């Protein structure tokens, strides 16, 4: 589903990604771990066609990035630590706006908006302005926006930032439900345990390269913090 070969990204003279290779098959949930500045967000912004790579090749669902960016965008749903919503519009207005941008047929828009709002448990607050929502509710609405057009790939950039324990628990359930539907998910997080629990596979990004990559079933969760420290520490002192 996602094929990345020799990906590089250089900001000015500062290389952020240095020949990164990664392949994510359809339906897999991959968690990307890594310290700040390791290139996680840059990688997700490139996959979301928000940033151009300096070198290398990327294919998502068979489409080349950045050459066929519009086709890639139609397949992507993105959730970031910011809700990417308009706080002076209601939840329903926000989703109807994005439904228009994603070119959903007008006859289906209202029903689709209702479906996703019910799925994230916000239908009863659909006509409330988003600025009256708690951070957790805004993040659930962000997921509703991301799955509105039924994308085959979800990119989640530290979606738990700023959430309290209850809201994070709700988000866990929602992401599991979304992943079960056969979507390919790539999530970045600093929460090792949560990343392990949610995903099929763990990769650790360090100094712009994949320094560790293994299926979750092959990793002992109790040794993950030590493994993470070892991989990232070794890379940063190299």
């Amino acid at each position: 589903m996602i094929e990345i070969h020799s990906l590089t990204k250089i900001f000015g003279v500062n290389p952020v990604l240095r020949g990164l290779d990664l392949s994510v098959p359809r339906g897999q949930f991959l968690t990307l771990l890594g310290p700040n500045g390791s290139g996680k967000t840059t990688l997700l912004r490139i996959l979301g066609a928000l940033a151009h790579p300096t070198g290398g090749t990327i294919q998502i669902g068979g489409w080349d990035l950045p050459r066929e960016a519009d086709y890639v965008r139609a397949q992507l749903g993105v959730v970031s630590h910011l809700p990417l919503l308009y706080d002076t519009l209601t939840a329903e207005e926000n989703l109807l706006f994005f439904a228009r941008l994603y070119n959903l047929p007008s006859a289906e828009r209202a029903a689709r908006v209702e479906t996703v709002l019910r799925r994230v448990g916000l239908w009863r607050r659909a006509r409330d302005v988003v600025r009256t929502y708690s951070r957790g509710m805004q993040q659930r609405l962000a997921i509703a926006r991301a799955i509105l057009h039924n994308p085959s790939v979800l990119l989640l950039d530290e979606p738990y930032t700023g959430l309290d324990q209850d809201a994070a628990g709700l988000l866990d359930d929602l992401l599991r439900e979304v992943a079960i539907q056969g979507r390919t998910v790539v999530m970045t997080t600093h929460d090792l345990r949560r990343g392990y629990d949610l995903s099929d596979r763990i990769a650790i990004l360090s100094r712009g390269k994949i320094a560790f990559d293994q299926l979750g079933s092959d990793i002992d969760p109790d040794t993950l913090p030590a493994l993470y420290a070892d991989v990232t520490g070794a890379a940063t002192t190299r």
Partner: protein
Amino acid sequence: MTAESQPQTAVRARTRRPITPYLRSVGAVVWKDIRAEMRSRELINSMILFTIMTVLIFSLALELDAKSRRSDSTVAGILWVTIAFAGILGLGRSMAAEKDRGSLDALLLAPIARSALFFGKMLGNLLFVLVVALVLMLLLTVLFDATVIRPLVLLMVLLGSIGFTTVGTLVSSMSVHARARETLLPILLMPVVLPVLISAVRGTNALLNELPSEDWMPWLQLLVIADLLYLAAAYWLFDFVVEE
């Protein structure tokens, strides 16, 4: 293309861009900006407040000079100074709000032409500038006893505002990423938009002084040409401006 791309026909069909979906995207962005502004009124209130204060200050400053006060040259100057600075205020805030709440990324993630986003934002900004211009023209009529609201003056204001908001939307998309964006916007905008402002001021001045058509027509024609050039440049450049 790989063997994995079976559902691509459906995706391609959905993202094909004939004119109707393109216009629908432009309309959606305009609708969103109007709707959001009607709720918050942050932009339009600050622009109108600035306009009222500017016209009142000019009115008080010129109170003792009755001749200057009645002069149509003064009125044309006040009209365009106020539109330009109220416009800068609105343009800066409009794009900064998108950037600060992250919604600019949400717009850029949508599978629509970047130019559709540009025209949506530009038309929203144009609408707000025109509302301010209308309030301003009413104030000038009352406070300066000038007959500003005339069809050709309205046309001049419309054409000048199109040029101004086209360049302004493009430049504010660039400056929004900078730390000193409030300072950077007028510095970058003013030199580029100067042909529009000169044509608009000179043309409006000639119209208010009821000069013959050979005095204002060249400025009107220049405005039309500048608008078309700026619109074409923005259509091609916006993609590069928002690219990382």
